């Protein structure tokens, strides 16, 4: 059965994030508060996903290397996008990612107070990526680099849980149609199944967020439709978990979201017993 390989330190998997840092990301973000730019949406999305991935792998003794993570930025340049201690690195063990954020912000989150209400709790929020908006949108080139990164990983980890590539973009590629390289990525496979290519569309369009649609009918523009078509269908096991979590997914739902977050994908990954009460 596909997508059933154990994710462990002995058999780790990998994530490759491909993030749009082009000039068009300086435009307003449709899901923002009016002052936010799309580049803020991208930075927030990647930082939140990395945070969730690190926390997923954290144990009392430290962070277990269940995953290796690569981040490719595309804009004025295309290439590995980590900064600071991780600058220039391709695939980095998740423990190093967790221990090397560029900075850690103090934020507050609402938590249940045990008496039916909510109370503010201070939390430390790590920042790896700042908003960047500069240059063209060479998405095809960036996806090509992601493909090489995954191919290299698969040659060393042929039996791993299939790697996941997440492209965070406004979809307005300037180096031609990225569909064919997306097709090539989705055809890569480990012995446990095909690689998953998901797309997170950060758009200036206002309107309700869309999560994991099963058709491109009703998507707000041609960029959303193209990104939908480039996205892998959600595997059966992810659909089952998504349904249990109360998410609205259908047969044919794809790994595509519009002005929404994709943190749920990280929660879908099984590294052992996950309490039903742990959100």
């Amino acid at each position: 059965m596909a997508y059933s390989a154990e994710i462990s330190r002995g058999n780790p998997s990998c994530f490759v994030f491909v993030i749009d840092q082009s000039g068009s990301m300086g435009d307003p973000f449709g899901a923002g508060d009016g002052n936010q730019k799309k580049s803020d949406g991208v930075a927030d999305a990647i930082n939140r996903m990395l945070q969730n991935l690190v926390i997923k792998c954290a144990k009392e003794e430290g962070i277990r290397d269940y995953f290796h993570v690569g981040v490719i930025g595309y804009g004025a340049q295309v290439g590995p996008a980590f900064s600071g201690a991780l600058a220039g690195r391709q695939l980095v063990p998740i423990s190093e990612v967790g221990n090397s954020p560029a900075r850690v912000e103090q934020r507050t989150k609402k938590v249940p107070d045990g008496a039916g209400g909510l109370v503010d709790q201070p939390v430390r929020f790590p920042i790896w990526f700042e908003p960047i908006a500069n240059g063209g949108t060479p998405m095809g080139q960036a996806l090509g680099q992601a493909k090489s990164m995954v191919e290299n990983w698969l040659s060393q980890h042929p039996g791993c849980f299939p790697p996941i590539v997440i492209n965070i973009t406004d979809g307005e590629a300037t180096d031609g149609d990225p569909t064919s390289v997306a097709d090539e990525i989705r055809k890569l496979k480990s012995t446990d199944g095909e690689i998953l290519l998901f797309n997170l569309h950060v758009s200036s369009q206002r309107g309700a967020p869309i999560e994991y649609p099963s058709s491109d009918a009703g998507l707000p523009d041609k960029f959303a439709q193209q990104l939908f078509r480039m996205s892998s269908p959600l595997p059966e096991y992810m659909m089952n978990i998504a349904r249990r979590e109360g998410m609205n997914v259908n047969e044919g739902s794809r790994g595509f979201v519009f002005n929404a977050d994709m943190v749920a994908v990280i929660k879908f990954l099984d590294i052992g017993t996950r309490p039903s009460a742990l959100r």
Partner: protein
Amino acid sequence: MEIYAKEFWLPKRGSSDAEYEDAFSIAEDGFRFAVADGATEASFSGVWAKQLVRAFANKRLSIPIVLEELKPLQSRWQKIVHRHPLPWYAEEKASSGAFAAFVGLELSQEHSDAATKRTWRAVAAGDSCLVHLRGDQIVGFPLADSSSFSSRPNLLSSSPTSNGNGSGLLLSTSGSWGCEDVFFLMTDALSCWFFREREQGNEPWNLLRDLDTAGHVSFEKLVADLRSEGRMKNDDVTLLRVDVLA
């Protein structure tokens, strides 16, 4: 009549003994036995699992467990976790609390002129299971078939808010016991294998009853074989076998 309890345990393949997050406790004097299984996806779960089994063995938890009784354990867990400053990810993880499956068994007997009444009572949360074997009759609690196991069970939390009001989380049951009965307390990987074997017409209790006796398979070998054949999930595994001997 004598009660004899023996524990068997192994960490997940690829993990060290120090990373084992199940726990067990035996109080033969008090006729109380428990196993617990700390959830992998939470942190400090092994500590929480240990706290639960010890508190049960020491009769600091009732049957059925009352949520109020967990409060001292939950405060203690907070103190243990925050003994040292934590990095951002460990702090965030710990703020969600630790989680564990749990099953506890108590045997009791009341003597009267006419007869001796022997009763067992058990309490459970999640997918750690008790099997009561008498002859070839078995009773499983709280689960009794392999299809009931998932990787997202309801578990007991070190965070009071995650336990809600406890309804549907803590279950209890009881029965009678006698000479030659055997009780198996097992964490989920072994429980799931046990029920699946039984559903296929096999008698897994014979293997477990004879473990580590002369001429029979060792626990280590049994688990290693089942894992490598894909018949048992690679997880921490614990068995507490309680034999009632004449």
